[in-house]
């Protein structure tokens, strides 16, 4: 395949892709006096419009995407992103409104925020929400800050946070950023929180347990209320990572599981596009006892109008420049309203059906460390293929040859060589079958011709890339031909 040059490599002096209207005000005498001006922007591109258009169109064709095919990344919930949601977010009454506009001038935007908060409250059973966090990890940070603030109000913020060994890496990282040390909680033989280990670890030094439910194996934490009771009885808070909420909508609510704080990922459960890594949105929901600590400003209803309430003495403060990723929230609201109550339940039911269909179809061919029933995702491993010297990485790369995006790799950490598969509810059965067939062929190939897997992918725009060299000798920007690239 043809190499697409970097835009800097096709740049040439004097080319333009855009022109501004002529300046319609006098430029004034001594206009530049007193400014620290730069002579030029060294290396900055100069190209024509068609060059920009072809550059990006060609680059786009080198991506796999939900719009192109199956994307079974576990824990990422790569569902279809409805196009009408993009249209809704682009309405000038949302996209064109300035965040410093007085509340009276932004009633439509405030109503999006308020309605979404209320709907998320109903879906999760939590009492209040903030939409300010820009992503899941941002939500985790906010959630832990709320807990810390509430504990500090009681006189002791405590020192430790408990996190199961199956948790996403952002959990310990967010707890750390909030000033906590982390103690890991073991998983039991079913893949759930080990109650004995929790009992032992849950001391008066512990601020919170951060639990993902269903957890990263796709297993529901059946003991969640007992877990909550243990944590609460020793004065701690129960934090739920809601990354896997796609399994539970209309089925059960974290609020009724005695969860104190939850974050959601609107870019997972509520279908806003992942955009190649973001933007997402990570709303945080809390029970009444923590509401006063939520970031400000908050949106409130007053005499039929919506107002921004800035005066919140117990608030942890701002976490975003303005109101978070507002246009992402518009898209999530559109998704919730399109589905409605019945649709939300069906969403979770079918997400779970699709995952179990895949699980049943691949059982026996791939090793399943935990036999416990699973909900919206399942985690196989490369244990059987390792006997032929084939790793999960080889399996993943070979899947690319079959036109399928690989599952999430090597996570959760409690399953060595993990392949974590989450199909979501929007996939057609035909796509699931293509994936299942590909996985079956690969299991066969692993036995018969392992070399084929090790040298995969064979039909992608590039072959397997040397990630070790990239890290050892980092080239993180274009410098110019014949010049030494930037070395870290």
């Amino acid at each position: 395949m043809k190499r697409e040059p970097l835009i800097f490599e096709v740049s040439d002096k004097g080319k333009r892709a855009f022109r501004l209207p002529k300046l319609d005000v006098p430029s004034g005498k001594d206009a530049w006096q007193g400014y620290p001006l730069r002579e030029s922007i060294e290396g900055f591109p100069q190209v024509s419009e068609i060059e920009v258009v072809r550059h990006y169109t060609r680059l786009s064709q080198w991506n796999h995407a939900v719009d192109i095919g199956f994307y079974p990344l576990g824990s990422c919930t790569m569902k279809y992103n409805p196009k009408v949601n993009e249209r809704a977010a682009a309405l000038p009454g949302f996209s064109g409104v300035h965040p410093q506009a007085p509340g009276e001038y932004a009633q439509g935007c405030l109503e999006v925020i308020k309605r979404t908060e209320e709907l998320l409250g109903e879906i999760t059973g939590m009492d209040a929400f903030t939409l300010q966090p820009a992503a899941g990890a941002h939500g985790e940070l906010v959630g832990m800050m709320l807990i810390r603030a509430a504990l500090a109000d009681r006189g002791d913020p405590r020192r430790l946070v408990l996190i199961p060994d199956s948790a996403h890496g952002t959990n310990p990282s967010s707890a750390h950023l909030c000033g906590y040390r982390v103690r890991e909680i073991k998983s039991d033989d079913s893949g759930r929180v080990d109650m004995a280990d929790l009992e032992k670890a849950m001391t008066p030094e512990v601020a919170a347990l951060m639990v993902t439910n269903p957890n990263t194996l796709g297993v529901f934490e059946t003991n969640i209320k007992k877990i909550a009771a243990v944590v609460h009885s020793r004065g701690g808070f129960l934090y739920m990572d809601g990354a896997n909420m796609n399994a539970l909508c209309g089925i059960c609510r974290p609020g009724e599981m005695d969860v104190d704080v939850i974050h959601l990922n609107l870019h997972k459960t509520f279908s806003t596009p992942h955009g190649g890594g973001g933007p997402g949105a990570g709303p945080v929901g809390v029970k009444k006892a923590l509401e006063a600590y939520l970031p400000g400003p908050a949106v409130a209803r007053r005499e039929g109008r919506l107002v921004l309430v800035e005066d919140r003495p117990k608030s942890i403060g701002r976490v975003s420049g303005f109101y978070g990723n507002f246009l992402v929230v518009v898209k999530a609201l559109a998704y919730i309203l399109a589905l409605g109550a019945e649709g939300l339940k069906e969403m979770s039911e079918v997400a779970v059906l699709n995952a179990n269909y895949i699980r049943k179809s691949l059982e026996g061919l791939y090793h399943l460390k935990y036999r416990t029933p699973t909900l919206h995702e399942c985690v196989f491993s490369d244990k059987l293929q390792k006997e032929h010297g084939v790793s999960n990485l080889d399996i993943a790369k070979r899947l690319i040859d079959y036109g399928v995006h690989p599952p999430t790799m090597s996570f959760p950490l409690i399953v060595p060589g993990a392949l974590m598969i989450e199909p979501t509810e929007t996939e057609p059965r035909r796509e699931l079958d293509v994936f299942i067939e590909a996985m079956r062929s690969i299991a066969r190939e692993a036995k018969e011709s392992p070399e084929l897997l090790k040298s995969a992918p064979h039909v992608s725009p590039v072959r397997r890339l040397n990630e070790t060299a990239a890290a050892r000798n980092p080239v993180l920007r274009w410098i110019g031909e014949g010049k030494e690239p930037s070395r870290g």
Partner: protein
Amino acid sequence: MSYISLSDTDKREMLERAGAASPEDFFQGIPEDFRLGRTLDVPDGLTEPELLVFMENLASKSDYGRCLSFLGAGAYRHVIPTVVETLSSRGEFLTPYTPYQPEVSQGTLQVIFEYQTLICQLTGMDIANASLYDGASAAAEAVLMASRVNGRPKILLPRSLHPHYRRVIETYTRNTDLELLEAGYGDDGRLDLRDLESKIDDRTTAVLIQSPNYFGVVEDLEAVSGLAHARKALTVAVAAEAVSLGLLEAPGRLGADIAAGEGQSFGLPLGFGGPYLGFLGCSRDFLRQLPGRLAGMTDDAEGRRGFVLTLSTREQHIRREKATSNICTNQAWCALRAAIFLETMGHDGLRELAAQNIHKARYALETLSAIPGVGPRFSGRAFNEFVLRLPKSWEAVDKGLRSRNILAGVGLEKDFPELKDCLLVNVTEAHSRADIDRLASSLREVLR
């Protein structure tokens, strides 16, 4: 509207294969005592036409669009070339995940690499990351990064810093040992260097300086870094209006060690505050302390150039609690839009864009200052914003202008009690001369 793709036959056969009689069977592990047992109190689903009507109604409740607005203060209305919309809305850019599988993500990865390069060129930094949430969180991450670099306990923030940025920094540092100190501003609106100098000592991790600052005034970055470096403290340069980088000297060439800011001006709509784009660059010496994702260049098995996410040993999915930040999902699609915007504007276009902003703001300031009692609060050089002093109460003036469908700016007294009856006015290339003249004549009427 359901987006589910299964036919009734599919469902039946798939349930059978999965060994279940109904979907209910899959949820047996969820104890009865907290099963919902009722339908969610969410309205019935809407079809696409119904949804659009609903959303259009909601959007039409925002009266902002009926106003002539000069609001800036961290979010700016600039021209967005058509190609930015057209190209960024391609499903191949909008609907992939983070490019963890590089062989099928070369598009996104090369875009990130180009974006990193563009940010380096603009800021004069050696390296830049793949994006952070927004300008305020980028400033906060820059502060945390500086403290990791030299381990000192105090950070100096200018009083002329965007108040929201200050609050986000306060939130992010609340549970650390970092102490925040404030340096004042002078009559020119710039950082008071004497005050700054008196507050920097050997325990200062960094001096943060926003330029143009919250008041729109261009700072003397070189002098500030000189004072910081004399005490071996770092200089963190923050830009809330990144278009300024098109014409003003790159912070890296004026002594900044870390540059952070808001990239919203590069092709992102106002969007009631988001999604925006936090950028962060630094000297290559601090590479291991840089938070967030990085794309790097490498070769494939056949020696062809390709791109991968790299140096992930800094990140949470590898390092967990020892990571440089907890960030995972970032603002990749916003960075894509910024890259398309900047490459479309090009070298000459971006410089002209910046120049027009200066000229228009200058014209507006001069025109408004011709009104008796009205004038600039600060004497320093402005980029595309300035603080206007009014002879009457801001509330009364605002009310009068609002009745004429004009939002003239952000009143400053709430965040700066010393700036009573002052407002922050933003003018960009998107304002015509007629817009500015209308503001002036309306203000004249209101003050009469």
